[in-house]
């Protein structure tokens, strides 16, 4: 069990690739309201970056760097942020899941022109916030699943 990590080549490649996968995943999450993708897809891509590390390194190394509790907290934080954003709409007099930020001119409130346009990051109302929340949730959920399964490698059933 001690020396179950891959060769040096695989570990170095995984370390080199991981930042790019992470940046791509965060790009998909942040631009969810402008380009194809969104919270679920981007969260899955970010989780893939972590899975790349899990595959390349031994279980002990991963346990030292990434804890199961941290990923559980990430998932819970994402879900809480998602529900909280939906609940705030009730506080400002809209329906549950109402878009209480759109058209206000403030954060994510820039009005958007009709038709095909490149778009602006500062639009979308609560949609970017919910994208980030769902991205956090999916990232945490996938990592928890992989970490939980990883703890069973090499054990007798």
């Amino acid at each position: 069990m001690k020396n179950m990590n891959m060769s040096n080549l695989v570990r170095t490649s995984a370390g080199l690739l991981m930042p790019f996968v992470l940046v791509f995943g965060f790009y998909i999450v942040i631009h969810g309201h402008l380009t194809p993708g969104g919270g679920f897809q981007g969260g899955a891509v970010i989780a893939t970056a972590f899975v790349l590390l899990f595959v390349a390194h031994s279980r002990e190394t991963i346990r030292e760097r990434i804890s199961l509790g941290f990923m559980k907290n990430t998932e819970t934080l994402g879900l809480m942020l998602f529900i909280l954003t939906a609940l705030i709409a009730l506080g400002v007099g809209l329906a549950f899941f109402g878009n209480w930020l759109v058209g206000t001119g403030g954060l994510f409130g820039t009005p958007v022109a009709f038709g095909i346009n490149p778009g602006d990051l500062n639009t979308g109302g609560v949609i970017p916030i919910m994208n980030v929340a769902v991205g956090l949730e999916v990232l945490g959920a996938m990592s928890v699943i992989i970490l939980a399964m990883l703890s069973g490698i090499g054990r007798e059933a």
Partner: protein
Amino acid sequence: MKQIVTWIVIAVVAGSLLLCASGLEFGAPAYQDMDDYMIAHGQEETGGNNIVTDVVFDYRGFDTLGEATVLFTAVLGIGLVLRTLAKEDEEYEYE
């Protein structure tokens, strides 16, 4: 004999379904009032350029909440099934 009957039933059912489907035009749903409304008003009402995300996170927010709950429940179930292993792992780690 039984097998032949089974195949005949499959052929009849599949054939009738294909016959029904052959009359449909591809890419032309029967009711598209909702699609037209969302394409026409989605950008001004939700402020997002990606209409799919507008539908998922604004018009159909409840669906997304359910989807997130399904994912949470899946993680809960996996944690329940693999609980013993994770616990052993933690003890192993802190010894």
